[in-house]
């Protein structure tokens, strides 16, 4: 804020700043460092760690996540209670290794979270840009559809879609369902931005120059809503992951025996009543951490990419 304020109020200091920049051109990594100066380190570390766990799951997991550990009992306690360090967090009701299931669950959560966000984001971008730029009847119709879809609460809508769809596409069913539930948010926000972009000079000039509608949307509109899209996407990942976990908890998300964190919590509710909290905590803590990290990142991006809130 300070820099922006001095630049806009006194031209002298702005010139000085430019001179300084001219004398010592910033190396590219320097620019990146400035860009990331106030990045939420914790969130980035968590997300990076999750990505590593997801990619290297087969090497990190001590056991097969889908098969009972040979010779192990079911619902055993953690190693510090049983002394059996082969299953550090114990086994679940089918004798499967909990740690291995949590590790493989990272893959599901991240893959579904990111893919669902991408599906929702692509559809929402397309509808938002087309409605906002073309306007008129197209806009009216598309936005009324968006209103109608937004009227159904996300969880109920997802349950409905899951029942209509079934899991005929396996894990991709849930990605499509999540995309169908969340695209409307992008469409509405992006359409609003496009409405004001449409009136800007560079768009008018492109129109005068004879550029086609599709070219203007592609070259002039979409790049200018990219920031907003990024912010929406980063804030959607968390919600998508929670909704996937909720559906899996209810038994209509990722089909068993896949180790989805939500299904693991549902299965761990019986041991919980006996005071065994670890089978619940083992998947619950990673869900909370993942969503927390993406929310922090989204909050930071929102402030970082929104010029009115920028604090540099």
């Amino acid at each position, binding site marked *: 804020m300070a820099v922006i304020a001095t630049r806009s109020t006194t031209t002298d200091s702005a010139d000085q700043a430019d001179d300084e920049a001219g004398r010592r051109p910033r190396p590219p990594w320097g620019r990146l460092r400035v860009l990331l100066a106030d990045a939420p380190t914790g969130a980035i570390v968590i997300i990076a760690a999750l990505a590593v766990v997801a990619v290297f799951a087969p090497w990190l997991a001590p056991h097969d996540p889908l098969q009972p550990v040979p010779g192990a009992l079911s619902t055993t306690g953690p190693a510090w209670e049983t002394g059996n360090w082969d299953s550090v967090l114990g086994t679940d009701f089918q004798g499967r290794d909990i740690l291995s299931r949590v590790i493989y669950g990272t893959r599901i959560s991240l893959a579904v979270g990111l893919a669902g966000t991408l599906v929702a984001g692509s559809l929402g971008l397309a509808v938002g840009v087309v409605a906002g730029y073309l306007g008129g009847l197209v806009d009216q119709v598309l936005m009324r559809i968006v209103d109608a879809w937004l*009227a159904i609460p996300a969880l109920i809508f997802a*349950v*409905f879609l899951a029942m209509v769809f079934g899991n005929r596409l396996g894990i991709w069913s849930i990605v499509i369902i999540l995309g169908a539930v969340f695209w409307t948010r992008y469409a509405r926000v992006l359409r609003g931005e496009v409405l004001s972009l449409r009136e800007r000079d560079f768009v008018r000039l492109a129109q005068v120059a004879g550029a086609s509608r599709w070219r203007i949307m592609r070259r002039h509109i979409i790049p200018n809503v990219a920031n907003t899209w990024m912010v929406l996407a980063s804030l959607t990942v*968390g919600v998508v992951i929670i909704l996937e976990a909720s559906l899996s908890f209810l038994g209509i998300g990722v089909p068993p025996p896949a180790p989805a964190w939500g299904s693991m*919590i549902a299965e761990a509710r019986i041991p919980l009543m006996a*005071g065994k909290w670890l089978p619940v905590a083992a998947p619950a803590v990673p869900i909370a951490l993942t969503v*927390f990290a993406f929310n922090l990142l989204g909050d930071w991006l929102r402030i970082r990419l929104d010029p009115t809130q920028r604090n540099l």
Partner: protein
Amino acid sequence: MIAFVLRRMAASVVTLLLLSVTIFLLVRATGDPARVYAGAEASEEEVAAVREDFGLDRPLPVQYASFVTDTVKGDLGHSIQFRQPVFEVYMDRLPRSLILATVAFGLSLVIGIPAGVLSAVRPGRWSAGVFRAVALTGVSVPNFVIATTLILVFAVKLRWLPTSGSGSIKQLVMPSIALGWYFAAAMMRLTQSSMLEVMRGEYVKLARLKGVPEWIVIGKHALKNALIPVLTLAGVNFVVMVNVAVVIEQIFAWPGIGDLVYQGITLRDFPLVQGVVLMAGFMVVAVNLIVDVVYAVLDPRIRLER
């Protein structure tokens, strides 16, 4: 004023029609609707009977017309497992959900709004940090994780509260906290940003220059305007809470709408789930309409714009 209300009502009707088209087409586009309505375990004869009963062999526009007229008359179809009209089953369960949602909603307002105001007017204080952490947890931790944690602490370990059921005040505590937590966090975040926005306004500066005490500036001048978006969200939130407590009600065995949806899922009772979707959509559209009209009455600027 009347013109404004009529226009908003027309828009709401269009929204509801599109909603019904969406649901109608989604059921038919993804497979055999007779099989969906009959349930997964139905035999071929039962599926054929459902096709006959529902008139699913008629042309689509005819089917849609009867779908809409039935829905308008309050006929949401028949539940497979309850063997009675979905609307009746829904109305049986509604009071329970209203109780739970009212308490959770109250919690979200009582906690969310003051916390949002405080963190907006005292940004540097430790309290703002605490509120921010609580709000971030609220939107990051799924409600079933909060619910299971509450059960572990207060029911299994401390034995202060019963794990499930309904009927007593004690049984309301955990489900309403688990349900309200997220909404309290959402309320807080919105109140905070709305408050910050309003505090930049000229009339707030003027009030301060006039020497109005700070707590009156905040409480009277700023808060009144800052609450407009907050209350808009609150209206919809209440309706959402009534309908989406699926996971919470299932965990705490609370016999409301959410529990109904869960039974619909496990027993593949599709008409039931579809009925809840229609009711939820209808309630959201109705609340949005009411909120808009109330604002138009209170604030002439809103009814005058286009």
